[in-house]
């Protein structure tokens, strides 16, 4: 029996992950539900954001339960509209969370949250030079994926569909090209709305997926987290096992000799 936890670890910048399901911490109804869901997901890497502290409001400590569960933190640069913003946010995150890992995301347009490729490439180049492990959120653009890899990004995070849209792998054909050409891990981020989408991404050969909305907004996020964990493992196992060829004609699975011959 193939034991993926033992035999098939994902490595990013020298760090091993048994789980290929990465998770976000946004949109959960409360931090207890978040903690339970992330625990059910068995995820080992979680994203978070940085924001100016609300000096009057309540300070909800989301970090303590994550650190208690030994999770690797991946702060993002959400809110950055330019490379300059993102570089500043990355340095703040490094200072606040004592990690040099950064999910680089620059999306100036609030309607579709499409990542700005030019600013992202610029910021990635600088952040790599500044000693960051850069995981850029990007459109499913194979050329950009190569460029980001060339400037030293340790993984690429192409979108399946717009953030939070739950549409699935709208960008499938281009994800496949990225996966085929990449020399760094490909993490499908954004748009995955169902465990079947996640399984499909893994079957295509993605190295990991990042899920947030689909889990957090489910009426039962803990069960959904578990469902995603199973889907990711299943998809990965299927990819490693090797899928059959897709054809347009039938190929019999039983002998076609006449029944009574």
């Amino acid at each position: 029996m193939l034991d993926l936890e033992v035999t098939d670890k994902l490595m990013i910048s020298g760090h091993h992950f048994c789980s290929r399901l990465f998770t976000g911490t946004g949109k959960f109804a409360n931090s207890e539900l978040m903690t339970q869901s992330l625990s059910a997901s068995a995820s080992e890497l979680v994203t978070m954001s940085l924001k100016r502290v609300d000096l009057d409001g309540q300070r909800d400590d989301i970090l303590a339960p994550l650190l208690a569960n030994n999770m690797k933190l991946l702060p993002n640069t959400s809110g950055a509209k330019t490379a300059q913003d993102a570089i500043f946010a990355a340095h703040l995150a490094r200072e606040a969370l004592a990690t040099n890992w950064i999910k680089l995301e620059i999306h100036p347009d609030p309607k579709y949250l499409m990542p700005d490729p030019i600013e992202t490439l610029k910021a990635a180049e600088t952040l790599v030079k500044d000693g960051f492990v850069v995981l850029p959120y990007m459109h499913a653009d194979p050329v950009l994926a190569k460029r980001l890899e060339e400037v030293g990004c340790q993984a690429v995070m192409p979108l399946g569909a717009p953030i939070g849209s739950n549409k699935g792998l709208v960008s499938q054909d281009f994800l496949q090209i990225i996966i085929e050409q990449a020399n760094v891990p490909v993490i499908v981020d954004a748009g995955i709305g169902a465990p079947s989408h996640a399984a499909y991404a893994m079957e295509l050969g993605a190295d990991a997926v990042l899920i947030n909305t689909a889990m957090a907004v489910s009426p039962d996020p803990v069960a959904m987290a578990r469902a995603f964990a199973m889907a990711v493992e299943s998809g990965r196992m299927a990819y490693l096992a090797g899928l059959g060829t897709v054809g347009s004609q039938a190929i019999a699975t039983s002998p076609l000799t006449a029944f009574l011959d």
Partner: protein
Amino acid sequence: MPSNDQWVSVNQHQKITIEAGTSTLVDVLRELEIDSKVAVAVAVAIDNQIVTQSAWPDTVLHGGEQLSIFGAIAGG
């Protein structure tokens, strides 16, 4: 007698009184009740320059500075 009291602004809208040339960043953070426990996940910039946590006690304020205090929140 002239007062040494000055202001620094915090996160763009709040103002904190300091003793110019004497108050440090740590003093201001203490006043804001951002204690060392919370400070594990906090980053501070003065006039858009990040001040590393080890330098907080030696960072003397003179008044007129803009402090930005950032913390980790949930996000995807």
